């Protein structure tokens, strides 16, 4: 029909789709899934870092970390708002997270075990996230694209802070340097897996590419990330835990070793190191906060009633 044609030509022409525009149901569903998954990732992602605020080793680092975790919560808020423009409520989205129906980025199912993890999360996790997200700034859905522009700016700030933290450790005492290497050893492969399964295996890729939601393939993004990161690790004097990693002059890219996809699927399927803990933490916070949300509602109703009576 005409509506479908208008949509298709907007996509073709690179024009943004806005909330009031007609859109195919599958497009809408795909966006809700992806945006809410991203929002949930920001919220769950507050936990591993939040875990270190009270133990940050200097007040300056504590302030940086607090501000960063706060930014992540802020990203969660923009993204929930963007999802809401597609006709789902925050309650529904949160419910989907807590019931385990909705996913969030698997990377946050790994524990933050030391201070250097704060560096690795900024440098690598946020770095990988930016690689994934920069193309989304040109995504066909307007509210999502605009949210991503703002988020990417803040993420690249976090990425630089993370790298700077790693640099301070690597220039510090031997124990600090060892901390940095130990954290890199734990985070490297999970981060490399953040780009998702190989293009050949990826379920959603083809259609989302066509719709202008996704713009670059998983493997291409992964390669781009590795190419950018290897020299940074060298600058730090850290060793990336991949014995197969080496420059391929012919391809103009780094070759890397085989990825343990069984580990990837194990974590995605719920058996990663912290899946249970993260979900239970969100459930508990939500349950403990129920009386707070009810009080706010009850008070708002009382005020509204009083305002009506006064009128």
């Amino acid at each position, binding site marked *: 029909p005409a509506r479908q044609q208008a949509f298709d030509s907007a996509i073709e022409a690179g024009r943004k789709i806005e909330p009031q525009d007609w859109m195919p149901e599958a497009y809408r569903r795909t966006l809700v899934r992806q945006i809410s998954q991203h929002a949930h990732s920001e919220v769950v992602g507050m936990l591993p870092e939040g875990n270190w605020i009270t133990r940050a080793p200097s007040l300056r680092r504590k302030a940086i970390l607090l501000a960063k975790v706060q930014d992540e919560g802020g990203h969660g808020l923009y993204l929930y708002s963007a999802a809401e423009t597609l006709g789902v409520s925050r309650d529904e989205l949160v419910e989907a997270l807590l019931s385990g129906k909705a996913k969030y980025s698997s990377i946050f199912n790994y524990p933050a075990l030391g*201070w250097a993890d704060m560096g690795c999360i900024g440098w690598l996790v946020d770095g990988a996230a930016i690689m994934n997200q920069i193309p989304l700034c040109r995504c066909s859905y307007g509210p999502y694209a605009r949210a991503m522009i703002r988020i990417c700016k803040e993420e690249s700030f976090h990425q630089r802070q993370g790298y700077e933290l790693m640099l301070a450790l690597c220039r510090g005492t031997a124990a600090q340097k060892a901390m940095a290497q130990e954290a890199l050893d734990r985070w490297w492969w999970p981060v490399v897996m953040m780009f998702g399964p190989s293009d050949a295996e990826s379920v959603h890729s083809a259609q989302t590419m066509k719709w202008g939601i996704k713009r670059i393939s998983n493997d291409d993004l992964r390669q781009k990330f590795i190419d950018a990161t290897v020299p940074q690790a060298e600058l730090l004097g850290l060793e990336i835990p991949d014995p197969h990693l080496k420059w391929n002059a012919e391809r103009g890219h780094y070759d890397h070793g085989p990825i343990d996809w069984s580990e990837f699927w194990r974590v995605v399927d719920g058996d990663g190191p912290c899946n249970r803990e993260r979900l239970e933490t969100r459930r508990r916070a939500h349950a403990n906060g129920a009386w707070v949300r009810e009080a706010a509602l009850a008070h708002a109703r009382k005020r509204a009633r009083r305002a009506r009576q006064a009128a």
Partner: protein
Amino acid sequence: MIPRERHVEYLLRLADSPLVLSHRLSEWCGHGPVLEEDLALANIALDLLGQARLLYQHAAALAGGDASEDRYAYFRGVPEFRNFTMLELPNSGVASAGAADPDYAFTIVRNAMYSAWALELWERLSRSADAGLAAIAAKSLKEARYHLEHASDWTIRFGDGTDASHARAQRALDSLAPYANEWFAADALDDEAAASGLGVDCAALRGPWLVRMRALAEEATLRWPEDSAFLSTGKRGLHGEHLGYLLAEMQSLARAHPEATW
């Protein structure tokens, strides 16, 4: 003029309270009742941390030697900390150490009490004879206004919300109020700081603070608690049992690597 050593001690007394309260607020991060509140508390925690840092830096400049904000925060023990006892109480409320669910009413009412006090404090300290302190106070005053607004809004929602939230808010108010006595009980250091123009007459803060708090309680339909003879002594370094746990956690990493720069 107040001797330098006691000038520094007075500044530490001002600094330790926001640091410790900031720590308690940051414990909510990721565990708040609704995402907006996670952000609000992180924001307030960040303001308080900022106040503490400015005060420590000012104190360190005055003290000289190897004094620094991080030495103050990470390498003093319980008896050297000078925060008010109320602020070290865990988010779960008034009980002996032992893990327990955090209580948002306790956090909110404590923030309301503390920020109403801080408002009065910073307003007066913005006229301190110590120009550095006066500048910090002027900045902190603006923050305290926002903190009080946030905490007041929620106190009213709780008091005038559901029966359950009213009961929680009243319980928080009743259990916290005795811990505020310390804020208004001047000791020799308070007197000396006030007399020298550095500090404030801390007993004089009680009147305006009470006016604010009673008005808030009334709007929130809460009963203001009766006076009690309880007097905590954190600002003299005699703390309750909770601060030891808080510092053990806060200082664990820094103390494991005393030679490190971060």
